[in-house]
């Protein structure tokens, strides 16, 4: 199958990434997972930068690898096999560059894209979610998640733009060399007033308000950012005026395929671990009921993982072939997340008591997989979008 969608070079690259993920990234990731996510650790970005994998989608003319979506999905899957957090970092970079790739001016591309392709590791971030007051669990406010309820604002001031607001849940946000930010026109609440801006990471007025401590994906540093009258040149507006909403939807439609790929990677890691444990405990085969139970459970897991991977590959294939991808990418993301959550939880069951101990890989996979249904749009949001397309 791989030979149908990938060429020889790409397959070699993916094997390389697999080696890197298993031998170098994974050990570091387990350390980081134990320490917690207080700081941005640069060890993993360094490893990725060395192979030019921080954003492998970037076209060759900007120094990137220019990979297709299918190959990128395969790379993300392998990274997530080693550590989902590392994959999340790369996915966040790709989210950040997508508006630039679609609608950015040549100058913006030349200025920002090469930052992610150098040997020195740099990160990028996309800031969409608004910082909102805490949910009150006892009396939940009526808060429907809506992508377009943006309260950060921009205002033109001669040749520059002033940005004001605060954004939450920003992976890579603390040390990003550039941030893509979605804001609305000061005097309008309309969807057509939304606009993306690219902010250099060292602009004055960007402040880290809070470091978020997450359940899973702890290798990627996540923060809440405040933007206090950040002043940037007007040339940093991305796309035409008011194109923010369309760009946002396209960015989501394209890249949620990669979230699916992350799910497949985590599921595969959990499956292989469970298989290894079952083998070491002589639980494979069909000669006794307990063996049959474990083996057929594993057979089911691998069946689901295969189906999830094929869904992801199909979505990526549609993107590369420029077919209609909005629906298939949503389905790929939903299915792969579901499979990842099921498989990681079954893997803990197969492994037994050890799997519940903090520090056991199975437990990390479980937490990482749970995070997938929350980042870059919750399952709820994606189902909502999909149900409108049925």
């Amino acid at each position, binding site marked *: *199958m791989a030979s149908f969608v990938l060429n020889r070079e790409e397959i070699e690259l993916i094997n390389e990434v697999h080696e890197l993920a298993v031998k170098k990234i994974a050990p570091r990731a387990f350390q980081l997972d134990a320490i917690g996510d207080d700081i941005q650790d640069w060890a993993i970005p360094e490893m990725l930068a060395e192979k030019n994998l921080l954003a492998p989608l970037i076209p060759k003319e900007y120094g990137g690898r220019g990979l297709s979506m299918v190959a990128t999905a395969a790379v993300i899957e392998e990274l997530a096999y080693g550590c989902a957090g590392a994959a999340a970092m790369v996915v966040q970079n790709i989210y950040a560059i997508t508006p630039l790739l679609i609608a950015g001016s040549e100058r913006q591309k030349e200025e920002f894209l090469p930052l992610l392709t150098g040997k020195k590791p740099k990160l990028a971030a996309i800031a969409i979610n608004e910082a909102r007051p805490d949910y009150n669990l006892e009396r939940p406010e009526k808060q429907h998640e809506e992508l377009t309820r943006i309260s950060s604002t921009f205002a033109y001031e001669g040749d520059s733009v002033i940005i004001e607001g605060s954004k939450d849940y920003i992976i890579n946000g603390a040390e990003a060399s550039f941030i893509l930010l979605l804001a609305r026109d000061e005097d309008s609440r309309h969807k057509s007033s939304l606009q993306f801006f690219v902010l250099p990471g060292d602009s004055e007025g960007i402040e880290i308000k809070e470091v978020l401590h997450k359940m899973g994906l702890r290798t990627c540093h996540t923060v809440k950012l405040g933007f206090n009258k950040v002043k940037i040149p007007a040339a940093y507006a991305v796309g035409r005026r008011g194109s923010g909403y369309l760009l946002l939807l396209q960015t989501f439609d394209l890249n949620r395929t990669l979230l699916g790929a992350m799910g497949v990677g985590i599921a595969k890691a959990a499956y292989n671990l469970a298989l290894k444990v079952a083998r070491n405990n002589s639980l494979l085969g069909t000669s006794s009921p307990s063996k049959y139970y474990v083996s057929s459970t594993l057979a089911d897991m*691998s069946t689901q993982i295969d189906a999830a991977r094929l869904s992801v590959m199909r979505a990526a294939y549609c993107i590369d072939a420029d077919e209609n991808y909005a629906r298939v990418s949503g389905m790929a993301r939903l299915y792969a997340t579901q499979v990842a959550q099921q498989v990681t939880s079954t893997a803990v069951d197969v492994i037994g008591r050890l799997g519940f101990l903090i520090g056991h890989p199975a437990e990390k996979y479980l937490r990482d997989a749970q995070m997938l249904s929350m980042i870059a749009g919750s399952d709820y949001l994606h189902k909502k979008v999909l149900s409108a397309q049925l």
Partner: protein
Amino acid sequence: MFRSTISPGDRELVMMVRELVDKEIKPRAVNYDTDEAENFDWTPLNLLAKHNLVAPNIPPEYGGRGLGNITTAMILEEIAVGSAGLAAVLLTNLHAVSPLLTVGSEEQKKEILPQMTAPSPKLAAATIIEHRPNLELVAQPEAMDVRHSSVNVEDIKEGDLIVKGIKDYVMNAGIASFIAVALSTNPAQKGSGLQIAILPMDTEGITVGAPRKILGLRYCRAYEVIFDNVRVKEKYLIGKKGSGFLVFMQNLDRVTPLAAALSLGVARAAYEAALEASRQRMFMGRPLFEESAVSFALVDMATKINAARQSVHLACWLMDQDLDYSQASSKAKIIASNVAQEVTARAMEIIGGQAYLYGHRAEIYMRDAKMLSIVDGSEQFHRNLLAVQLY
């Protein structure tokens, strides 16, 4: 994704089948879901035969269309959307023909295959399940074993085999012109004693019992077949001596993805029916679809069908490329029949009360989906196959 590998002509053919099914087969599907009628209704089969779709993967030199496995799977899916029972008749036919295509000799192919592609179709039946005289649930008299057939060779005369025994749940047997059967040449040997043969139904000594009452797929009737000192001519033996078990397993693997395509068809039909109902049924003055509980359930259904379809097409693609397909086809079967059962059950909930009425199409889908998880190797059987191959 794999769909893009088929030729534009094949794609048009699939679209043609979709239209045909929509117009001619779907409206009468409820009538086909019966095993009461005395006479078998040949209309849909004649219709398909007119378009040479009864066994579409037979190579052109024998009069068939010579379609690849992906296209065949897509066509079966379309037919199963209309009537899964009708698709099951074709599937059983393909199952019986498959050994002939893989290991049959030129003479055997020339004799049998052109009859199946003729405008008035002749079908074949495949015997898989053994006759069990005693369905004692508590103590099974002997373990079920596919490596041993209950049709035994009693004698050999001038190279011809004289066989005796009973096979049960033989689909198509009452309407077929040929029957494929695995013979046990030596009860002491298990796998290596099997021999596949395909023989005309009118051979002396073959008796077909009355159709059995079955849960789903009712258009495809199942019978008991008795072999009473049947003389199997040497020219009807397929493959080398002792190759029976290998041929059987290989063909099971080859047909399994097509059986999974039937599950896809049933799942899709149920999903479409549920989607339509959710737009029409009102709940508190609004269409049911606007309830997120309902629309999200529909999203889940579509998502799972999509995933299962990719698995089925992967197995078909691997077969077309002559790569290793055995695991992929077991996986395709498990996931497709799983998804079909889940989707058809959910669809009934969305459609609501009327779906529980006997003869409503949603209820037919659910019974068909359950049947499909059992025919052509049950899900458990395929799980077993996968479990012993865990690497």
